[in-house]
Structure formats: C-alpha cells, structure tokens
C-alpha cells in the first residue's frame, strides 16, 4: 500500500453467523490495528450494567458478605439501556452517590429456606426495579434437558438460613472491572491463504497423501474420495501450526504447500455474556471506538504538537 494517495480504505464486514450471543464475521480491507482496536473495545470499553453496591440486611448463609457481593457483581444483567445510561460518577441527577434512575438500577433479594431441602438462590431470585435490566436468562440449549431453568446460582441455603439484601447496579466498563465486560470471547484470526502445489502433490502416493493430511491437528485438508486428490476442506481450520509444512519438509517435498496469512482480512468470533446481544455489542463497540476517535480528533485541533498528542492517547483511554 505504498504511494502518497489516500490511505482511506473502506472496510467491509460480512456476517457469517449470527445468534443472540454469538456472531462470526469477516472484516476485510483493513489492517490489524483496526481489527485489534475493535476487539479491545468490545472487551473493555463497551458499557454494561452490573451490580456494584450491595447492602446486606441479613446473611446467615455459609458464604460471607463479600463473597456474595462478588458473586452478585459477576451476574450479567441485560444492559441494552447501558449506552443511554449515565456513569454514576458524572450523573448530575444524583450528586455522585449513584442511586438515581439515570445511572442505577436497584435489585432486591429476599430468600429464606424453610424446608429440609437445600434451596438454591439464583439470579432469578433477584428482583429488579427496572424491567429492562434483569439478570440474563439463558435459554437452555439442550431444550428438553433441565426442564426448570434456575439461572445462575448465587448461594445454597439450608433450613433456617436467610439472605436478604439490596443491590445497586450501575453502568461501567470492562476496563474498571471484568464484571462490566459484555464479551465472553472476542477473538480474531488472519484469514489463511493456502496454495497447494498440485504437481508436487501428484508425486505423492495415496498413502503419503493420507499421512500428510493426517499430520494437521485440525481438519484443513482431505482427500477427495473420487479423484484421490488432496483438497482444502476448511481453510479457516488451519491454526498456523506449520505442522503440514514441517511434514512436507520431512517427507522431502518442501514447497508442497504454501500458506500465508492475508494481512487485510480477519475472521472475528464474538461471544457475548448475554448482557447485550452479540450484534449490538459489535455496533456499540464501533460507536465507542468512533467516540474515542472523535475525542482524538478534537484534541488534535487544540494541540498541534505531535509530542503531546502521543501522550494524550493514553489519557483518552479512560473516557
């Protein structure tokens, strides 16, 4: 990409798979910096809502107060509203104590075990003051199995034990605490380009071909049952482990296959905790990234020296 002309490229996104909590897409015509900043923003800077303050009234369970508070914090809450909410630290409606409707959601939990059976206190026992912010409900993937879906377990109670508390959920970002991170998994890989040297390949016997195909820990190659030719089945299954290349060298056929990573296309896998839909997570991430870039652009106008600009970058991170 030499030349003094415009660097601007128009990245393209192609969504391959889309579920509520899972998205797989291709990002093309851009480079690692953009891909990575997208990943980083998704992990650390897309806001969600999570329980941040717990006032315990009664706790006679086996787990201590901090323990329960920590567990509560890690329960993902549906946070579609999070982008519109305010951070409690810069909320004007409440003077910073973070207990108003613009920046917080109140939860209540009152459970007491009255039977001899162990009672599981789960995220379903949390009562929210706001119906848009509730503990994430996971539809059981097995469907038939586990007919009663009881949510995320908080603590187990025996007869006579009681747990009563009030919890405040606030908006936050994953950078401050992982409980605010909406992403369970965000990762990408470079798209591999695989060139098989057909001529060299033909010089292998079927046995050797099989052996070579087997040498890859993932199923990238296979042998066509009809033509008995080696074919690339799943390019993206390749994990850049170099096994096949090493194998080819060991077989005395260097250059049997040539694998390169395409520098400008990425395959993203995003799994969400359920706090926001995976697709929304991506959109929010782009929003946040854009805001950050805006902040950089704004400060660029103010301060010209590149020196200060470099330092500013790190200051901008928090906002």
């Amino acid at each position, binding site marked *: 990409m030499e030349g003094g002309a415009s660097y601007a490229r128009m990245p393209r996104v192609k969504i391959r798979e889309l579920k509520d909590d899972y998205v797989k897409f291709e990002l093309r015509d851009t480079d690692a910096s953009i891909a990575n900043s997208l990943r*980083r923003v998704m992990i650390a800077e897309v806001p969600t809502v999570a329980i941040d303050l717990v006032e315990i009234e009664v706790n006679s369970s086996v787990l201590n*107060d901090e323990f329960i508070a920590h567990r509560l914090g890690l329960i993902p809450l549906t946070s579609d509203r999070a982008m519109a909410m305010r951070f409690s630290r810069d909320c004007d409606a409440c003077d910073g104590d973070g207990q108003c409707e613009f920046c917080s959601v109140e939860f209540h939990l009152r459970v007491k075990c009255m039977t001899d059976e162990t009672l599981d206190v789960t995220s379903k026992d949390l009562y929210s003051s706001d119906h848009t912010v509730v503990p994430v409900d996971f539809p059981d993937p097995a469907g038939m199995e586990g007919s009663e879906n009881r949510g995320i377990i908080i603590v187990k109670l025996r007869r006579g034990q009681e747990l009563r508390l009030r919890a405040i959920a606030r908006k936050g970002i994953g950078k401050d605490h992982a409980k605010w991170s909406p992403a369970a998994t965000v990762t990408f890989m470079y798209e591999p380009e695989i060139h098989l040297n057909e001529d060299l390949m033909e010089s292998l016997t079927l046995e050797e071909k099989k052996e070579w195909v087997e040498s890859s820990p993932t199923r990238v190659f296979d042998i066509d049952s009809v033509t008995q030719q080696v074919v690339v089945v799943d390019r993206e299954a390749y994990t850049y*482990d170099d096994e096949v290349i090493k194998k080819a060298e060991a077989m005395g056929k260097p250059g049997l296959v040539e694998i390169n990573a395409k520098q400008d296309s990425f395959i993203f896998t995003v799994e969400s905790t359920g706090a926001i839909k995976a697709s929304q997570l991506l959109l929010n991430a782009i929003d946040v990234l854009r805001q950050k870039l805006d902040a950089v652009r704004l400060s660029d106008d103010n301060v010209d020296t590149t020196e200060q600009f470099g330092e500013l970058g790190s200051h901008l991170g928090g906002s």
Partner: protein
Amino acid sequence: MENQSVGIDKQFLAAPVKSAVDKFQLLPEFLKVRGLVKQHLDSFNYFVKTGIKKIVRANDRIVASKHPNIFLRFKDVRIGEPSIIIDGSPEKITPQTCRLSDQTYWAPILVNVEYSQGSPGQPNTVEKNDVIIGRMPIMLRSCCCVLYRKDEAELAKLGECPLDPGGYFVIKGTEKVILMQEQLSKNRIIIDTDKKGNIIASVTSSTEAVKSKTTVVMENEKIWLQLNQFPKKVPIMIVMKAMGMESDQEVVQMLGRDPRYSSLLLPSIEECAKNGIYTKEQALEYLESKVKKSMFASDSSERESRAYSVLRDVFLANVPVHQHNFRPKCIYVAVMIRRMMDAILNKDTMDDKDYVGNKRLELSGQLVSLLFEDLFKTMISEARMCVDKFLEKNNRTNRFDFSQYICRDSITTGLERTLSTGNFDIKRFKMHRKGMTQVLARLSFIGTMGHVTRISPQFEKSRKVSGPRALQPSQWGMLCPCDTPEGEACGLVKNLALMTHVTTDEEEGPLISLCYSLGVEDLELLSGEELHSPSSFLVIFNGLILGKHRRPQRFAMSMRKLRRAGKIGEFVSIFVNEKQRCVYLASDGGRVCRPLVIADKGISRVKEDHMKELMDGVRTFDDFLRDGLIEYLDVNEENNALIALYEGDATLETTHIEIEPFTILGVIAGLIPFPHHNQSPRNTYQCAMGKQAMGNIAYNQLCRMDTLLYLLVYPQRPLLTTRTIELVGYDKLGAGQNATVAVMSYSGYDIEDAIVMNKASLDRGFGRCIVMKKYTAIKQKYENNTEDRILRPDRTADNAGRMQILDDDGLAAPGEIIRPNDIYINKQSPIDTKTLKGASAANLPDSAYRPSIQTFKGPEGESCVVDRVVLCSDKNNNMCIKFLIRHTRRPELGDKFSSRHGQKGVCGTIVQQEDFPFSERGICPDLIMNPHGFPSRMTVGKMIELLGGKAGVSCGRFHYGSAFGERSGHADKVETISETLVKHGFNYSGKDFIYSGITGCPLQAYIFMGPIYYQKLKHMVLDKMHARGNGPRAMLTRQPTEGRARNGGLRVGEMERDCLIAYGASMLIYERLMLSSDPFEVQVCRKCGLLGYYHHKLKTGICSFCKNGDNISTMKLPYACKLLIQELQSMNIVPRLRLAEA
C-alpha cells in the same frame, strides 16, 4: 494356582500391566484400615488398652510404711469417656467444644481399688469402683475418643471434619501434636568408631528399671569397658573375671577359636595378668576401687559390693541376671567383642548409625506412657507420705479413708502441663527434652497432614555432620525421600511415606518360648566353644541372645509361616544376617515397616479373584494379611527379601512385590504431578511450599476459631491429579486454582520468576483469599470480688465515631465493617483490684473504673469485617470473648504464588485483559510465566502437567500424574496426552499460535500454553509492606523503634554504612545516623570535657563540675552517645570530650 508350570512360562503368565493396576485397590483399602496417622493412634491405643494397665499393675500397692496392714490396691484401670465436671456432674465433651472453649479434651482415668478404711487400729478392707485418679488428654480418633469409628454424618454432627486425620490432642483449646521422635535402637549392639577412631561396641540398655549405656572400646590394642559408673575405663578381661569367667581359655573359646581373634585379645589378657588378677574375688576387689563412689553411702553396700551390683544392674542392663547367673552377660560381652574384632579385621562389618533399621521411632503413646508412669509413681509416693503423716499425727482414733489420698490433681495437671508446653522433664527416667509437642499446623489441609506424619530427630540440629542428613537407601518405601525442610533441619526432620506403619510393643514371652520350641538351643546348655560353631547361627530376640539354631533359614521360614498364618503378630520381624551369622527377631515398638505382596518363586500371591473380592467388598485389607497374601516387612527383614517393583519384573528369586511404587513418597510429595520428571530439589521445595498454600483447611473451617486462618475464595481441585491426592482428600480440600499459563516473556515485569497476571481473572476471583484473625478479650474477675465490665457504648461521647460498630452490648456486631482504630470492645476495668471489697463489689461507682477498650489495628486503608463473636468461659471461669475479623483480599503486586513444582514467584504486574495475548480460539491466559524459569530448574513435570491439564480440559477427563505411574497406568503418558491434544485440534506439543493483545499481530513464536495448578502462598505484601517517615522512638535511646509491628524505622545497617563511607557521602551518613535518628543538644565544658546542662533561668549552659558556665559549648550529639557517656560515668569511667574548632 499354577503349581507345576515351567519358570519361563510363569514369567509369561505374570503379565505386568494388568495385574499391577489392580493391586492399586489395596492402597485405598490400606488407608481405610490404617489411615495416615495410624501410627499415632495405634501407639496411643496400645497405651490406653495395655500400657496403662501394665504400669498400674506393676505399682498396684500403696502400703503405709509403718502399718503394713493399711494399704490400697489398684485392681483395674481404664480410661472413661471424654468428659468434664460442670457443677459437680460429669458432662460429655467433644473435640470441637474443647477447641472453641479453650478446654482440654480429656477423659477420666478410672480405677477400681481395694483399700483399708475405718479406724487405723482395725482397718477393714473395702472395695470401690470407678474412682477418678486424674484426667488423661485423649488423642482424637483414638479408641477413647468420641470420634472413634464414626461415619461422616455422625462426625458432621459432632462438628468434626471427616477428612481430619486425628492423632493429636486438644490441650487448653489448642491442637497439639506429639511429633514422632527418631532415636537409635535400644538394647542393640552397635559397632562404631569413637572420636579418636577407636572401634567401639556400644549398647544403650533400656529396661523398665534402668537405663544405661555400655561401651566396649578397643584402645591401644587392649579392650576396655566404659560405663558411667566407672569414672575411668576398666579392662574388659577383669570384668569378665568378675562375672565368673576366671579362665582365659573360656573367654577365648567364647570368642571363637580363630587365631586372629585370640591374637587380638592377647594384649588384654596380658594386661589382666599384669594386674595380678586371676580370680573373681580379685577382680571384684579391683573394680570396687574403680567404681564411682556414690554421694550417699547406701545401705545395700553392706551386704554386697557396689561393683557387683553395678555389674548386675547397670552393666548391660538389658540382659537379665537370674540367681546370680552371669553367664548370659558373659556371652553377650563375648558377642560384642567378637563383633568388634570382626570390624577390626574387616571394616565392612561396621554398623551404620544412620541405617533406618538401627532406628526406632518413639511415638506419642510411648511418651505419654512414660509421663503417666512418672506421675503415677509420684502420686503413689505422695499418697504414702500423706497417709504416714496422718497415721503419725492421729492416734489411731480418727476415721481414715485411704481412697481419699489418691484423688489428686497431680496427674491431671502434670499431663496437661507437659503436653501444652512440650517440655518432657521426667527425672525418674532421666528424660529432659524440650519442644516435644507442637501446635498443629492449620495453615492448609495438607500442612496438617504433613505435620502428623513428621519425624523429628533427637540430636541437636547445629552439628555440621552430613551423615545423618543424607538420604539413606534403607529409607526406601519407609520415609519420604522428598519431604524435608531446607536449611538447618535439612535431612534430619523427615516424613513418613504413604504406606509406612510404625510398630508398637508386642508381648515377648510367648515369642521366646515359641523360638525354643522351634529348635533354638538354649544358651545355658551351650559351651562357649559351641557358641560360634560354623554350622549354626545365633538367635537374637529384641537384642537378647536366646541361643543358637543349627538351621537358621528353616527356622526363619517357619517363623515367617507362623506370622503369615496370623499365629504371631504381623509386625514381628525375622531377619537372617548371614554376615554376622545371626537370626534377628524383633517385636519391639517403633520399627518402621510397610506392607508388601508376597510372591512365591516370583509369582504374586495376590490374584485377580482376590482383587475382585476386594472390589466387591467381601475382602478387606486385613483378610489379605490373614490369608498370607501380604505381609509387613521392617527395614531389617527387607534385607532378606528380593522385592520386584512390578509383577512383570519378578524373577524366580523374587520374594515380594511392591504394592505401588508411588507409595515411597509421602503425603505432601504425593501432591506433585510427575515428580519423577523433576529435578529432585524442586520436589523438596514444593514439599516446603505446599504447606504454605492457601485453600481449605477442613470441612469445619468456618466453625473454628483459629488465631490465623487463610482461605481461598474459590479453591479448585487440580486438573492433573495423582492417586495420592485422591487418597488423602486433597481433591476435596484443595489449595490452589487451575490457571491457564502462557510460558512467554511479557512486559519485562516478569524477570526473576515474577509472574504477570490478568486483571480480568483477578476480577473474576482468581487468587482471591480470605484472611481471618482472632482477637481475644477477657472479662477478668479479680481477687477482691471486682470484675471488668462491658458497657453499652455512649453514642454521644467523643470517641463515638470509633464505637460505631459496637452493639448495645458493648461488643462489635458481626457483619460490621471494622477500620483501623475502631473499638471492638467497650470494656472497663476497676481501678482498684487489690483491696478486698464485700458484696458491694458489683455496684461500684463509674469513677472506680478506668476504660480498657481494645482497638483494632489492621492494615491501613483496608476494610475488614467482623466475622463472628464467640463468648465462652475460660479455665479460670472468666468470660472470654473472641472476635474473628475477616479480610477478603484480591491478589496484588508482590503476592507470592507457586506451582506444584517448587517454582515460586511473585506477581510482577497486573495487566488488563485486552492487553493480554489471545489465541484464535479466544483463550486468554490467566497468568504469564517467564520461560527462563525452566532451563535451570529442569522441572519437566511442570511441562507435562501443562500438557496433561490442557488435554484434560479439552477431553473432560481428569488426567493423572502419580509418581512412577506411567507403567502401571496411574500417570498418563506424554504420547497419549499428545494424541488427545491433536484429537481436539491442538498442537501435539501444547504450543499455540498467539496474537499480541496490544497490537493484534501474531507473536513470532508459538507459545506453550495450558492450565497449571497454582497455589497462592501465605506471604502477602499487605502483611509485609512497611515504610515510615516520622514515627515512634524507643524510650531509652530516643532512636526510632525497630520492626514493622512497632512502625519502626528502616535501618541503615553496618554494610550500608560501609558503602556510604567508601563512597564518601559523609553528609548523608551524618543525616542518617544522627539527624534522622536521635539528635540531641548537649552542653560541653571545654575545660573539663564533661557534659553540663542548660540552665533555663540563666539561659546558659552550666558545667556542674566546674560550677560555672564560662567554658560551655553547645553541640549536637546522638542521644545514644550521651547515654553511653553517662552510663560510663555511672561506673566510674570518665569520658571527656576534647573540642576543637572545625
């Protein structure tokens, strides 16, 4: 049974792998039957069931000295149920109640007595049953304990952890272990060299009555006897003559007629002749002149010479003398001399003091038994004295009850005091040992287990000898080769291996008569000549020469058959020593032994069907023992056995087969996965660190009130387990977490073994721990009937802010957040606690009290929580209030972590998750470890753990890494692990293709990444960090205080000072050593050079020597220097300061 098949065929039939795997089931069965602390329990049980009865039987009569018809006789003794007396009635106690209320867990010692009663003139005999003569602390889980044979649910009801091993005592609320004491065998001949290099044969005799050490030494070619009763050594020939061996020929014959022996003996015989001693009388006379004169002339010397009694009672005390028959002693001496001469002729026959077969372990039962015997005898003599005094005073008229004199506190307090201090000071048995009991380590579950299997040495640790510290080959299978501390006690403190058992004493009488009936020729019937005849072996039973046997192997075989058939005790050892031409039988206590599978001609007796029966629960470990499939071998008998590791290795000569090779390791070393792939010191390091790891302590951990308790919030069981882990229950009470580790360099904050941690992992609870600390307050009662009082806090007072957490009862409320300087108990003490007050003590005016509040001093800026408040009464019946304060901590910079391979490291930096490297699967490590940790440490086991863990998480099966387990299937092989990895799409070598989280670019190298079990160690920065600007100063010297606890200063030490001097930074030295320390202004008289003082009215310095202020200079001096000058002056040394212009 394949009886007639050919040898080669047999080896083929004994296919290695399958049968070996099956034999493993014996191990859990063994541990079920014996348990890990069985040695302690057995020993204590033996004492309670047999030992105490023997002691009482041996001293069962108390007779008034002047009135032989007034007596008390103990008919029976037993230990009752653990209980205490509350308000006159016995109340049952459990260990947990004792722990919580600072009581001793003990049971009454009940005796049945028969005694004289009534008027001393005509006493009539009365019987009384179940008289309590004292209280005996009870070992937990012993046969007297309430926990004995309780199942899990019952234990839970008693508040006890089912995984807790027991084997310790609860004394005044603290758990005390009596460590096993290692010592040299008693009553055995040991050939050794002394300091001068002379060859000696020594016997430490120990009988109920006497303890003595007899040494026969070869010096200047002559043989001498050393005995404490003889201040100088005496010629052995004279001793022999004194014992009735008047003829030199007989002595020579007893040694054997080999001319080499007689030539070695010749100088001694000549020496004897030179002294003109030929008869027994002459010899005794000679010895009489040599014997140490006792301080007080005893009346026994009238009847018999002192030398004679020394020879009879002290010299080789373990050999009994019946009816003045000294012949056994003579033969014993002859055998000693013969062994010595063997050693002179052939150095190989020297005994090794470090050989485990020459060692005995003294267990808690034996020690408590000694203690009890002493106290019991003391009680008897006290009772006799009291009775005598009573009878003397009262003219035989008053009523008299003997039984009143035996119920004293001396036994109770004696036992309690000794066990709680650990100082065994028993004059009667010449025992003065310190630190015998230790507070049970409750830092982690595994630390507890390690503590009860520990063996402490007898000799002092400071000696620089390497012999006793070295790993002895005879430790194989008995003592753990890995588990020993580093430093001072290295190699001296040992730990038992997994399957080791320590024997208890066994009845000797039946065994001796059995030996005679099996063809042992009695010593009495043998001439000296026959003693060492080449066709026969001496038979030595517990160090006592019984006689000789003409067919030793046959004798040994038949004894062993009897043992396997269960006719004699399973721990009797029969050992044929070909070199010494002796058969050694041992039934004494304290030998270490272990079970082995018996093999006939290399074929294991344990067959498939036996194992199947075991699995079905029809057969127990004891059945195996009874059926002669398995037997216990002690270290000596192991020398007669050829033990194959696996059945497949067995040859025709093989006599035994190991049950499982990994049992050579102990409990703690058993936690290490693949220890056989590690460099050996790494395993030793891990053994030391495993005890410091935080995790779970016990199931009842939250019901305990330990002074310090470290818990992990989310403990996990290791992904890569071992069989030992499952056997001891480490999988249920783990102490660590499975962290995904990437072995790579990152950020530079990972040098010197530091690790980089992922912030998100910490947020989610990795390494999060709970620290609980106990604070105690006592509501004291004073002798003048006053007592402390706890007040409802005054909410309007000045310090109300500090009392916020108090409830209305004046105690901190559980669940409240407590900050440094908060008051947790609003207590007041009476000012006057001395002068006696009447009933009005209860309502003193407020002015009679002064506040004695207790404030919390925790880490500044951290918020702790009051976890629990417990009220109980202590032993003085004061109310005792215990506060448990909890602090939850997340890992921070500088906290210490360690894997299970001796690889410790501190947290170097904490990094945001998005900056962490990630794989294309989305895996992001929890921590990053620097690869430089590997090359020099050579912990290959850690790498295999990583591989196995990775395979484990991908296939959903726990992988195993037991020591030496690859062959028997208790450890997964690297090849199979790699296959599993490949099957799940990973690289076979465990390396992953990783992207940098910072740039998004792939890393240049493949990264070795996978889960490793990491332990968080108790050393945390929060407890250690310390800095000070201004702060407190010591009163005397006005220098800053020392130590973190006192907010002390950071010392510029001698070496730092040297550096500064060398550098020439004089002003810095001045500033550090004086200005920042203890500057002081003094008035110095230029004339006399003495220190003066500053007169505040005259505003000048005055020299009190010159009586004027003319020549006063003001200067600065360290206060310590001024102090020194004054102290010197006070002892008439006058330091004078000569001042000059600077």
